[in-house]
Structures are given as C-alpha cells and as structure tokens.
C-alpha cells in the first residue's frame, strides 16, 4: 500500500485550474468558456477536499458542497442568459458580442 503525497493532489488541482484559465482565455465560444469556468471550480474543489483530508476535518467537504450548489445555480442562470443572448443576437461567438446594448 503505497501512499501519494498531498502536494500531488494540489499540483493536479493547479494543472486543472490552469487548463480552465487557458480555455477561458483561448476559446471564442460562449458555452465553451462557461464550461471552462466549471473546470476551474472543480479544480478548486479538489484542493479543498485534499486539505480536508490533511487536517482531518469535515469543513472542506462542506465548503465543496456549497461550491457545488452555487455552481449549479450559476449554471442555470448563466445558461438562461446565454439563451437570451443567442435569441437576440443569433450568435455564440464572443468576438461579435461587443456591445452591452443595441
């Protein structure tokens, strides 16, 4: 039974977070950018659960739970906003969505 150092979990979390940041900056599609935000939230959740394991306390789990709830609410509202934007502008490309009002 070989164990894994805690820092490996944190580095995995950092890798996933960086990928999320990269996707958010590189992608031009509104929905893909939104998915990259979810990827970043997941990466942070992993590090919180890892710290919860380290300190042997439940608080990290509770916080992860709240992050999940907020992410679900955010997904519902965000996708509704995307629906409205697409209904009005007929495009998903963020480069063309460059004015708040028209």
């Amino acid at each position: 039974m070989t164990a894994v150092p805690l820092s490996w979990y944190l580095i995995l979390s950092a890798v996933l977070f960086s990928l999320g940041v990269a996707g958010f900056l590189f992608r031009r599609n509104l929905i893909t950018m939104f998915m990259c935000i979810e990827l970043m939230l997941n990466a942070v959740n992993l590090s919180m659960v890892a710290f919860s394991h380290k300190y042997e306390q439940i608080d990290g789990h509770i916080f992860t739970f709240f992050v999940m709830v907020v992410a679900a609410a955010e997904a519902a509202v965000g996708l509704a906003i995307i629906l409205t934007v697409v209904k009005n502008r007929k495009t998903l490309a963020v480069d063309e969505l460059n004015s708040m009002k028209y």
Partner: protein
Amino acid sequence: MDTLLFFTFAAIAVLCGISVVVQTHPIKSAISLIGVMGSLAVLYLLLGAEFIAATQVVVYAGAVMVLFIFVIMLLNAESEPKGGRSWPAKLMGIPLLVILLGLLSYVIQIWNPDPQEVSFGSFTGGGPREIGEALFTEYLLPFEVTSVLILVAILGAVVLAGGGGKESER
C-alpha cells in the same frame, strides 16, 4: 495501489481537461468535461470523501452537464472558426500558461510544511452522516441562505429564459 489509482485517474482528468480546451465543437468539450468530473469523483473517493464523490457524479456529471448539453443541442451550436487571434496571443499564450503552472507547482512544493501522505482509508469522516451533522448544526445558517440562493436562481432562470426575447411584452 493508491499511486496506481491516483495516476490513472489524474491522467484521465488532465487528458480530458486538455480535450475540453482544444476541442472546437462545444459538445465534444462537454463530453470531455464529464470525463474530468467522473475521474475527480474517483479521486474524492481516494481522499475519503464519499458523500462529495456521490454528489459530484449526481449533481455535476448528471444535472449540470445535462443542462449544458441540453442548451448546446437547443442552440444548435457549431464548431468555432479557426484563427482570428492577435500575434502576441499566439506567441505568448502557451509559454505564459506553462510559466503560471510552473510557479504554482513550485509554490506548492516549497510550501509543503510537513510532507504528509494521502492513503486510502486514513480519513473516514466524509460519509453522509458526518456531512449531515455538520450541515445542520454548525453550518445551519449558510445552508438556509443557500436555499434562498437557489430560489433566486430558479426565479432568475425562469425570467431570463422564459420571457427574454424581443417579441415578448414583459
């Protein structure tokens, strides 16, 4: 065994994460994101967070991603066109990302106060019983506030998606 499981699912998570970023079609990104979330659920199990692992599968991989795929299908999203980036972005994007990642990893390794190892089964406080106890005693107020948040989110989603178009009178 722990190392094997960690590396297998960490590799799946990173590969699917790269796939989320490089795929041009949103539906392929969404499927890759489900892969990331599934492998993260296994890593949560390794960390002794059974309830969080179950919630990850049910809420994230289940509900949230189904919502995403539903919207992608509804909007008939197609692949995004290539190119159109400025030359500094093309030149510096990937190197700067690697630098960011290297700095993060370096800080994590430096910080490491007492090198502690994570082995399966050394922390068993992540079951539904412990979560429920903490949630309904110590964290009761945040829990109630969360319910209000969800109510607001439901109302917001209904208002935004239901009546959003120009043709509706609102």
